[in-house]
């Protein structure tokens, strides 16, 4: 089966700096890809080219076999590639239903469309259906987002992309600001998405998370893709040494001190 997304030799330069250098990636249906790398490795640049935020200087993106011309983030979203950024883009003062339908509210028409109102009951109903489909439990959908936990907010953001038929979801550090239990919920949700055939690209610093949900792990370093491993056939140590550069580990003979934090979390 052909990959859903093919990124072929994507390159992005900012002045003299090559932030992403000929990076290629195939994403298949139902796959979770962990995209890892140190700060400045080029993960965000690479993702933003896929999301239509940056125009690649070189290379090609194919979605379902079709080349994707650069047309900005809206066009990419319309294709079904949804990116969930760290800030989630939820309106905290609105309820769950209103956020899932933000900007695309369901309307009731009266007097031949002369008067149109927002159909809140139906928005809540359809939100509930989507949430159920993803096994997300939120006590009350009429709650304002500000009263939800971080994990629940993340779930609402994910549910929103799914409701609008996302065919590929990119998540930028989805668990970074969450407590342990909520991290677990979000990871379960990532798994649910892929089980339903929606591939996920997960950007994360957290090795534990990456190994918990990924099928494949892609490592970037200094703008280049330096490794691609099946999660089952690799170890956190190998991934970390790819992240910092195998030579560095060899030279020092130990994991550098800067990475001891990651080491402890393994």
């Amino acid at each position, binding site marked *: 089966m052909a990959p859903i997304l093919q990124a072929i030799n994507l390159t992005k330069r900012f002045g003299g700096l090559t932030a*992403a250098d000929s990076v290629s990636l195939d994403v298949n249906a139902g796959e979770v890809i962990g995209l890892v790398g140190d700060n400045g490795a080029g993960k965000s640049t690479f993702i933003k080219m896929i999301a239509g935020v940056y125009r690649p200087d070189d290379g090609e993106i194919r979605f379902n076999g079709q080349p994707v011309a650069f047309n900005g983030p809206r066009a990419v979203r319309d294709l079904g590639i949804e990116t969930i950024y*760290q800030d989630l883009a939820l*309106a905290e003062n609105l309820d769950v239903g209103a956020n899932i339908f933000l*900007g695309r*509210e369901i309307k009731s028409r009266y007097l031949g469309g002369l008067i149109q109102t*927002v159909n809140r009951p139906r928005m809540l109903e359809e939100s509930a259906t989507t949430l159920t489909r993803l096994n997300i439990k939120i006590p009350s959908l009429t709650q304002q987002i500000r009263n939800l936990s971080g994990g629940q907010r993340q779930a609402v953001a994910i549910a929103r992309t799914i409701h609008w038929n996302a065919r590929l979801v990119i998540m930028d550090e989805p668990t970074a600001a969450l407590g342990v239990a909520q991290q677990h919920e979000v990871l379960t949700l990532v798994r649910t998405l892929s089980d339903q055939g929606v591939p996920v690209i997960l*950007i994360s610093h957290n090795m534990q998370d990456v190994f918990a949900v990924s099928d494949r792990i892609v490592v970037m370093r200094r703008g280049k893709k330096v490794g691609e491993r099946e999660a089952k056939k690799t170890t956190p140590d190998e991934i970390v040494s790819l992240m910092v550069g195998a030579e560095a580990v060899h030279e020092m003979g130990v994991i550098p001190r800067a990475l001891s934090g990651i080491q402890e979390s393994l």
Partner: protein
Amino acid sequence: MTVDSADRAPAESKAPTAKHRRNRSENLVLVRKVWPWIFLVALLATFSIASQQMNQVTFLSFRSVQGILLYASQILLIGLGETFIIIAAGIDLSAGWVLGFSSVIGAQIMQSLYASGASPVVTIVVGMLGGTLIAVVPGWINGLLVARVKVPAFITTLGMGFLVEGVALIRSGGYPVAQQPPYLGPLGNGSLLYFWPGHGFTFFNLPETATNADFQSIIPLMPNPVFVAIIVAAVCWFILAKTQFGQHLYAIGGNFEASVRAGIPVSRVLIKAYILAAVVAGIAGMVWTARFSSGAYNAGEVTTLNSIAAVVIGGASLFGGEGTIIGTVLGALIIGTIQYGLVLLGVSPFWQYVAVGLVVIFAVVMDQFGRKLGK
């Protein structure tokens, strides 16, 4: 250039349990929603007792309730437009001056039409429409500057206030624009209904069979300006609470960036909101013109800040995303009650400002208090 932020503070790590949260958020809603009602009732009770004790005047009479409503109606009208703007995290400091501007322009249209021999009815209809619609211009410019040029609303509307005040002054020479057609005064000072005990109701006019001696016993119900304010409030409520435009205003005030990313046409929504606020100010200007049978550049001089006060008392947040029409109605009623009540008690009108100021500060304190409970 790639920035991967790993060094974010774990903002949610201290999240309390879900149950805890819900109780507190219920408190938040309760405190912020209920206190204006209690306050209004307490205010009415205080004034009733005080006026009975001090002046042997019954405060809660039919006439004084209508007096309060009349006092409140202009604040309410401006406050309605202001509610839309404040929910979208803006502010309109020009509203009161747009009121005066509309009043001058509308009155001048009527003055010249009537002088050139047009019938009073045509004159009044054309003048009122013209005076109301001219407000679209400052509203539209406000919206353009705020939404597209990204000038802060505070500065834009402050400047626009001076601008329309100046234009109204230049056009009127600073004098009231009088020589208005007949019917205008009766329209502005009449009532929707007249009740003549023993004879029944009539609409708009005093009963024709009544003589001067009967007028004392006829009770006017619902002064026309109040009626206009209620209609406009109902329309505004519908727009804000029920339409997509209203929903988008809340979204923009709640999270501007998210609204942009969700594909809400943010600029268009904001421009519409500023035009709407200005048109409502225009309507208020025409109501004023009818009440006083003249136009004046400073007709809404003190109304802007009073109406912003009303919106804040009604539970709107100046940071955007919060506020309701019902809240603004309550806020306007509270300010109207204070103003009317103090006059009735024979307190110097200068004290009104002190009282309104105290209530506004109290409202913000209650808001902060509610927020703390909700955290």
